[in-house]
């Protein structure tokens, strides 16, 4: 089995691919959906960057630069299309993001520098999301309303109605700031936890519906467990029916379809101030995590390779340009890692920090936690 960081076996072929159309198109189509070439190339570049970062990340976990890897190779199309459509900012006028551990693509597309990811992966003190405390991909970015990601499956769905409630109220008071929504995402296996229904139930209280965009990335597996063996063979989106929640399934491997589906869902949540459930069928290209080896799985469709082929076929780009983008992305990832590895690690002194926010009404810990209270 080839190493995860090797190029795919058909690389030579890929480089030789030739488009079949003759004139450069203005839009890229997929079924009834389409996207401008300009946007398609932006999406493509962000997908490439995401992939480069993930592959470099896997390498870090194998080389000892890092320890544990988990991430989203195979979800680049969906995540990038999502990230580019987020209303990014701080506070209830903007979107809140309740993410899980496969969402690097969302944040790279939103503009996060790669080093913000590698610092966490390499457990540096400079890791702004967690000071080297949390697994990679466990982002926390107050300026973009990215609330802290936690490893506990599905709890983000229980929180999303809370941010959405504040957003809906804010919009009613501030009609110009009435489009913020709460976006929550997780895998298909996690929908077996009660929080998934809690999210739907709390988002549909009569007259108090909430703008929650519920996303499920269905890669058909929870670690080693095939969804079809533990769940009735109905789509996850059917779960929305009893709550009267609008829903759709999209091909998360196809950026054109995914973009349009996200656009429709977001528009609905933003305008109607109601929830929407979007299920995206995606690939899992390196297994669950480094714990299961993170080997490349060549059976699943690669959304990046497919989109590359589509763009080349459509003459939207040519192979040298693709290669240049890939080289850039790789170089960017390498540079991030090089810089990261020069940065300091947390020390003994950092153990207690950030346990508590400063409080004017706490006699023992007015500033932060300092260990068990001792006589002063």
């Amino acid at each position, binding site marked *: 089995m080839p190493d995860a960081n090797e190029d795919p076996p058909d690389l030579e072929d890929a480089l030789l691919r030739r488009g079949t159309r003759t004139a450069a198109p203005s839009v890229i189509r997929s079924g009834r959906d389409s996207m401008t070439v300009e946007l398609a190339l932006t999406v493509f570049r962000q997908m490439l960057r995401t992939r480069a970062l993930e592959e470099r990340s896997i390498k870090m976990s194998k080389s000892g630069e890092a320890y544990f890897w988990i991430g989203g190779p195979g979800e680049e199309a969906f995540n990038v299309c999502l990230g580019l459509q987020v209303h990014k900012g701080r*506070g*209830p006028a903007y979107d*809140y993001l309740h993410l899980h551990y496969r969402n690097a693509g969302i944040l790279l597309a939103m503009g996060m520098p790669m080093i913000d990811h590698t610092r966490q992966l390499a457990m540096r003190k400079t*890791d*702004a*999301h*967690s*000071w080297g*405390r*949390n697994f990679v991909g*466990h982002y*926390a*970015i*107050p300026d973009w*309303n990215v*609330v*802290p990601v*936690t490893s*506990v499956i599905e*709890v983000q*769905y*229980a*929180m*999303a*109605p*809370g*941010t*959405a*409630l*504040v*957003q809906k*109220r804010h919009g009613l008071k501030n009609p110009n700031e009435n489009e913020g929504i*709460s976006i929550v995402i997780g895998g298909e296996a996690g929908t077996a936890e*009660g*929080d998934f229904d*809690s999210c739907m*139930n*709390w988002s549909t*209280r009569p007259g108090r519906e909430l703008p929650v965009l519920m996303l499920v990335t269905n890669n058909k597996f929870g670690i080693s467990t095939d969804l079809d063996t533990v769940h009735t063979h109905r789509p996850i989106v059917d779960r929305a029916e009893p709550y009267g929640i609008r829903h759709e399934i999209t091909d998360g491997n196809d950026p054109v379809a995914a973009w349009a589906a996200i656009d429709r869902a977001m528009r609905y949540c933003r305008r109607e101030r109601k929830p929407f459930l979007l299920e995206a069928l995606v690939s899992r290209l390196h297994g669950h995590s480094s714990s299961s080896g993170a080997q490349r799985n060549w059976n699943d469709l690669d959304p990046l390779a497919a989109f590359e082929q589509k763009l080349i076929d459509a003459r939207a780009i040519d192979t040298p340009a693709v290669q240049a983008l890939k080289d850039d992305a790789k170089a960017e990832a390498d540079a991030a890692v090089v810089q990261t590895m020069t940065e300091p690690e947390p020390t003994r002194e950092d153990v207690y*920090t*950030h*346990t*508590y*926010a*400063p*409080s*004017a*009404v*706490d*006699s*023992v*810990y007015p500033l932060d936690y300092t260990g*068990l*209270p*001792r*006589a*002063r």
Partner: protein
Amino acid sequence: MASIAQAVRMALHYGETHLGVTDVFGEDVGPPLGGVFTATQGLKTAWNTPLDERGIMGTAMGIAYAGGRPVCEIQFCDYAFNVLDLFKVAGNQRWAGAGTFALPMVVMTPNGAGIRGSLYHSHSFESWASRLAGWKVVMPSNALDAYGLMLAAIKDPNPVLVLLPKALMRAKDTRLIPGEPADPEELSRMIDAPIGDRSNWEPQWPEVGDYTVNIGSAVLVREGTAGTVISYGRPLPLCAQAADELARDHGRTFDVIDLRSIFPYDWDMLSKSVLKTGRVLIVNEDTEVTNFGEHLLRRVIDEHFYDLVTRPRTLLGKHIPGIGMNQNYETNSVPQLGDVRAALWDLATEAA
């Protein structure tokens, strides 16, 4: 002269009007009931939720993340176990997120036995809660402290759990909350919802004022020399009463400390008293295996082992699966006044 339930209600009203509280919610917290103990009657931001503790905690977290100021209720602490994972996440999010987000949320919940509630309206939660790093946990034993601790909980930008002793919820304080009318019947007319149809009822709130009991500050409710008694919540009045009886009948006086704050706790006050008396009794009603009182005892041993003149001791609930419905179960498994009195006497009289 308010009860704890009335004090909490007034504190939440003060919170809504002066401290930015945006949401008071939980099962049966909104109209018409206003809480199974009436603690949320008449509040303008109070609303009813689905019967779903996970949703309650998760929504509170979301509201807090988005800049709201939520106070939510778990109807009985007995049902906090359904959502302990979210308690943990709320407690660790700031540490895990390197301080990126504050989470100013308050959870309140009735705690302990004493209302003849059988297994599932009798749990104590403080020992569990004390293990939730990142949380602050308080438990008043009277209405004035309930008011002051609730305001502190609202002001504190961290998750704060307010445990309210079920059995004392209707106990009247002898003192007044700032702004509270002196006549308890007047207070009742103003803020207690009427029996029957309440659809047109509106409370008339007294102009209650700011009064904060700092988190982490205990209070010495009796002063003495024969020993140090550390307690909080429901058994605290029993400790005070037992101390009074022993003072009156036998001239033995005790430092009785109302801890008020489970975490952080006022080690300063405990330490000084232990140094003074050399004798320690820790009393609570929670089950005795891995009990928060055992933690306090360990701190006493850590720092004052050589200052102790007799064996330090604990008086705790029995390690059994629940409090039984028949009163004989509770009487024989949860410390009673007689048990406290006997323990105090032993503490004071054991040869040094």
